[in-house]
């Protein structure tokens, strides 16, 4: 097979998992491995925990400011650090946003994207009647897309998700239903590339939760939405 693309080699240098075919080639190709190693020297020098952000906040002793003031000639003085325990860390420097906040921000965009999704043709076959459908449009990347259909058979509804998405080195895809105004979400379960069927909770009002969202979830035991959504559409 042909060599890995320069982009894939750069991602490998950052130790991101590659698609299976590229990973297999890399394992066998000395030239590609040499390229990764050459790029990795910079990664190994800089991507170290001591330089990472954020770090837990530590109040410096007063002599630190005294030295700064002496060296700069600045006569202003900072307010004394709070003595009691309070105030969460000051405004985040380059801190990772809390998962919930990230999700809210991401989901706020759902309404925009959802509005763009088109309805699919409603059909009926042995899997039941299609009562609502949407295309799943890619978010950010153009790598993941698909369709979602709500089918009803014998009074039981399920969501059929046909997902066209890349293989994940780590983690898994999960499908959710979101409220357009972001006030709630319903986890429906794990989905894979290709055709999936997940049951819908009885009594769930799809008018309340019309946005189908596919996310990438890390295997971290945290049931909350990761904030990393790859495809979305709004049922109609």
């Amino acid at each position, binding site marked *: 097979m042909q060599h890995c693309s320069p982009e894939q080699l750069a991602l490998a240098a*950052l130790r991101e998992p590659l698609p299976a075919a590229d990973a297999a080639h890399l394992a066998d190709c000395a030239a590609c491995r040499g390229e990764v190693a050459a790029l990795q020297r910079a990664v190994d020098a800089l991507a170290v925990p001591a330089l990472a952000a954020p*770090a837990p906040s530590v109040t410096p002793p007063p002599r630190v400011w005294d030295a*700064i003031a002496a060296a700069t000639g600045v006569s202003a003085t900072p307010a004394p650090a709070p003595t009691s325990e309070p105030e969460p860390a000051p405004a985040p420097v380059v801190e990772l946003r809390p998962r919930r906040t990230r999700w809210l921000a991401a989901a706020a965009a759902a309404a925009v994207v959802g509005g763009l999704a088109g309805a699919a043709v409603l059909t009926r076959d042995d899997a039941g009647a299609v009562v609502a459908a949407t295309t799943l449009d890619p978010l950010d990347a153009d790598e993941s897309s698909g369709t979602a259909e709500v089918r009803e058979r014998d009074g039981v509804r399920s969501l059929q998700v046909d997902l066209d998405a890349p293989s994940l080195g780590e983690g898994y895809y999960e499908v959710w239903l979101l409220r357009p105004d972001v006030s709630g979400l319903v986890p429906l379960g794990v989905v894979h590339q290709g055709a999936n069927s997940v049951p819908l909770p009885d009594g769930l009002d799809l008018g309340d939760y019309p946005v189908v969202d596919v996310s990438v979830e890390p295997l971290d035991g945290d049931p909350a939405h990761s904030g990393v959504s790859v495809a979305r559409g709004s049922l109609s």
Partner: protein
Amino acid sequence: MTALEDRIDLYGQDVETGRTSLRRVVEPDDDEIARRFRDGDEQALALAYERWGGQLHGMAVRAFGPGPDAEDVTQQTFISAWTGRNGYSAGSGPLPAWLVGICRHKIADVWAKRDRQRRQSEAVAADVASRPGSSDDVDTRVADRVLLLGELDRIGQPQRGIIELAFFEDLTHAQIAARTGIPLGTVKSHIRRTLERLRTRLEVDGAALQP
């Protein structure tokens, strides 16, 4: 992705929230501190220290433990930022992120200083023991860091922000695309070009240090 872009900047900061409304009334926001800092308002240096000194000192303490080296890093970060404030522009990103970048330089400088001292003391010991060819081996990684942090400073946005998210926040390219709203393919090609640029810098200027 408009809503996402409006709310967060390249460093993933929430630009709207993070403080209580009460504090917002009585204290300038981060942007105002940044503007006044750039303009040389001494009070802004005190405000920046008040607001971000703990986090920068936290980075220094994580690298060196509490003590003189960590305090020196925090001190030097603010002193360099103040004396070099003309180098801070709107294109440098948020002020706290710029300060973090300076702090990384100061941490790398202390590592380099410690490495020099180690080699000197080893050289003295080797002299006394009359052992020829003893260790004069520079820790290449320590030297690489100083060199590469300097090269990062020369990289424009958004490339610099992208590689910093990969290096310092351990985000995948897909997460970076989601965080910044920059298309995935663009993120990938920026990552590739930046890593190739850093490799070239090491090959050209780090060559003498290679074993």
